[in-house]
């Protein structure tokens, strides 16, 4: 049976995009979408279109910046890359995410252990 697909929470999508850019360097929207699906192994199914408002939001906050460039097959594409503020934000969000998951783990683990 296929595992149920998770809905993408807004905050999560931001974190995923930032993490992707940190790992892969500058990428265009299509690349980010591919990477997200590849990493999540289709656990997360997102409408690729929803990526763009998220990218805009991150750009407006100054965490990523964009530049027009040429893709692998010489197509004009917009490349997004992480800014310094974005790196700091990623660090912050990773930390808080870890705290949150640790908390959830303890909470759920506790009930399991009892």
């Amino acid at each position, binding site marked *: 049976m296929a595992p149920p697909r998770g809905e993408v929470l807004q905050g999560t999508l931001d974190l995923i995009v930032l993490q992707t850019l940190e790992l892969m360097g500058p990428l*265009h*929207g*299509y690349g980010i*979408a*591919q990477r997200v699906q590849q990493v999540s192994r289709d656990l997360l199914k997102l*409408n*690729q*279109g*929803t990526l*763009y*408002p998220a990218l*805009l*939001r991150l*750009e*407006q*906050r*100054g965490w990523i910046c964009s530049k027009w460039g040429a*893709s692998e*097959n010489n*197509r*004009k*594409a*917009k490349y997004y890359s992480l800014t310094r503020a974005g790196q700091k934000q990623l660090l912050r969000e990773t930390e808080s995410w870890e705290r949150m998951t640790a908390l959830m783990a303890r909470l759920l683990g506790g009930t399991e252990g009892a």
Partner: protein
Amino acid sequence: MGWLRIFGARWRGLLSKRQLDQDLDAELRAHLEMLTEENIRRGMSPVEARYAARREFGGVEQTKELHRRQRSIQFLDALVIDLRFALRGLGKRPAFALVAILTVALGIGSTTAVFSVVDRILFRSLPYPHDDRLVSFGDTAPFEANEFVLGPDYVDWKKAQTPFRSVTSFVPGGADCDLTEQNPVRLKCALVESSFLPTFGIEPFLGRNFTSEEDRPNAARVALISYGLWRSRFASDGHLPGRTISLDGRPTVVVGVLPAQFEMPNLGHDDILVPAALDGSTDRRPTARQTILRVFARLKPGISIQQAAAAMQPLFEQSLNYVPPQFRHEVSFRVRSLRDRQIQDARVASWVLLGAVLAVLLVACTNVANLLLARATSRMRELAVRTALGASRGRLVRQALTESLLLGVLGGLAGCWFAQLLLRLFVSIAPDGIPRLEQASIDVRVLLFALAVSLCSGILFGLGAALGRPAPELLTGKENRPTARGLLRQVLVTVQIAVSLMLLAGAGLLLRSLWKLETVALGMDANSVITAGIDLAAYRYPDSAKQLAFFHQLEARLKHMPGVTSLALSDTLPPSGGMQATFLSSIEIPGHAKFSAGTGGMIGYRYVTPGYFRALGIPIQRGRGFAEEDRSPRERPVILSEALAKKLFPGGEEPLGKSFRFGLQNGWRTIVGVAGDVKNNGLAAPADPEFYLPWKNETEGYFRSAHVIVQSAIHPQGVADWIRGETAAIDPTVPVTIEVMTTRVAKLTGRPRFTAVLLSLFAGMDVLLAGIGIYGVVAFLVTQQTREIGIRIALGATPGSVLGMVFRNMARWTAAGAAFGILGAWLCSRFLESLLFEVRAHDPFLLGAALLVLVAVAFLAGWIPARRAMQVDPMMALRYE
């Protein structure tokens, strides 16, 4: 700061919308193409690949919409849309837009122009720090409009007072002084204390204030000069302080320059301040030289004007002991704010004009509201469609308000331009003596006011149309008569009629009062009389012998003027005040008891040459006028005015030949004649009793200034040139002020004329606007009822009965408006009372006339659409809709 960056980004998004849309299109297209290529690589056919890509991507348009929403500021975005929509709407109906904008411009323009004038009088702070703490205080007496303090009282009070942080004074009458260097000029000098500038919180622009040591009798002379004088005379010399100038022929050190915005508290135009050098004496003997002072003070924090007055009252009562008993009950004590002292009686007129112009604005707004309501009615169906498509109520209200705000702001812009014109008109027709009129201008503060008024009116006239709820039932296509809005429109017209009637009645009162004032009997004949005011400089003519010699010479020269019917000299001129005066109680007639209940009021007197009565056409009712022989020192005649003769000889006793004396120092005189009464205290006040003394050939009295009076049939310009020439032949430095007597008289009605003309102008605008409003509503109702009228005509109604139907409807709200208007006029006219002369505030005749005018206008305005109703073709009407 994050939000700021987001806001900035969004703001940019708003501005470069098209570029960003294109970018997004390109980006999404690239994404889809890459997806498609990938799918093809996976082995799908190109068509299949494209579909799959679309599926994976999700809704392209939704993404774009989300993106757009993300990058813009929604409120502003909607505003831009609304504004565009509103502009398009206005552009589509240019006639509607033009009428609405012009109406708003008329209202806002007049309001702004009047505000720019009265703001300086009523609201704007005076150019002193904490100006609301400044007061003027002193004695008030029937013979003087402003409060004053006698020198010895001032010395006492200043020491003992408690409510004021500081007290200062200046000597009134701003003496002329002369800068006696090369190119001598006549200037105005004010005598002030060293505490003067500190009390008002003014720092000299250059140099320093004078010290209290310099403000003593016999100290070395120092002066502060005005900024204007410093610029014009001393070429803005930064090293001027410390330099010695020659003032009235005496060396004087300039210690400082006053700041540019400095203003004397009595709004006088003084060029130089010199120390008053009060000697601090409390000498109260009758022979002591009593200085009269204008006293100003700064209140201590937390003390109100009433508290200050109460605190000073005991000091005042002490001083009252030195006042001769018969005067005591006529003197009282007053503290009032500096603003009140400055604007005097301009307050009432200012409020009246401001109220009138706000009424014009109200009527203008009502008209635009009516226009918008009519338009909203014709757009009902459109609004219903939008509601059905999911537009929220708030969104529709916002749209409607954007539209009316746009109209308000456009009208406001046009109004500011109109205000500029009006203000120029005001200044050009304004008489002298309106406080601060010369400063009035359309500046930032006034523009802000205009903006606020524009926005408020925009909301005000948009509200009615905006709040109307579009009924979805309209979409069914059935006829729906919007009765509620029709009712609102009629209420608006009722308001217009009421307000217009009030203004019209007010204008009528002022005009009638003006007419009475202008036709008031002067008691003299001002026609073909020319006067020349001549002022002798104190430093050139220091004693009365020299002054008299000058005038003697002038008189001798002018006697030979061709074409002159009569010529006279006198020290003062009717009908304005300013003549010398004595109390009735100081006049003695042998065998009569002296008047002793108070001062008895002021009795004026003039020195005149024998030609005076003939030149001014004043009738000698009994006895004789003066003759040349009366000018020799042996003769001591006096001529009484009729009013004075009645006062002194109440029982019809013969005054001629009786002895007469005023004041102990003056000798006995013989009454030789009684002259007719002449207005001598302005036009509105009753003529003060007065008497005439002959202008002697020997020194007597004080003649530094005098008037030449010439009655002549030849052209005034010729006479003026002659007088100027003859004066210059004796002494070219003496200034001559020529006036035609009729102009001089007309000047006295300047203030009331100004107020009356402006109020009439606004009332006229109001009536015009109300007429347009009535026309609009009647036309609207006739259009609404076309079908009904058609049916009635088809069923046999005569044109007359149709007309009656339309007019009956109109008569209902005209009558309601008239009733409210009469009530309002009745209540408000008492505010005008102090501006009226010989007219009762509640004049039923004038009110009736105003009502008649308004009803006539209403029926004229209603007639045009009503006639259309009579001509309705029943066939056309039944096919209507």
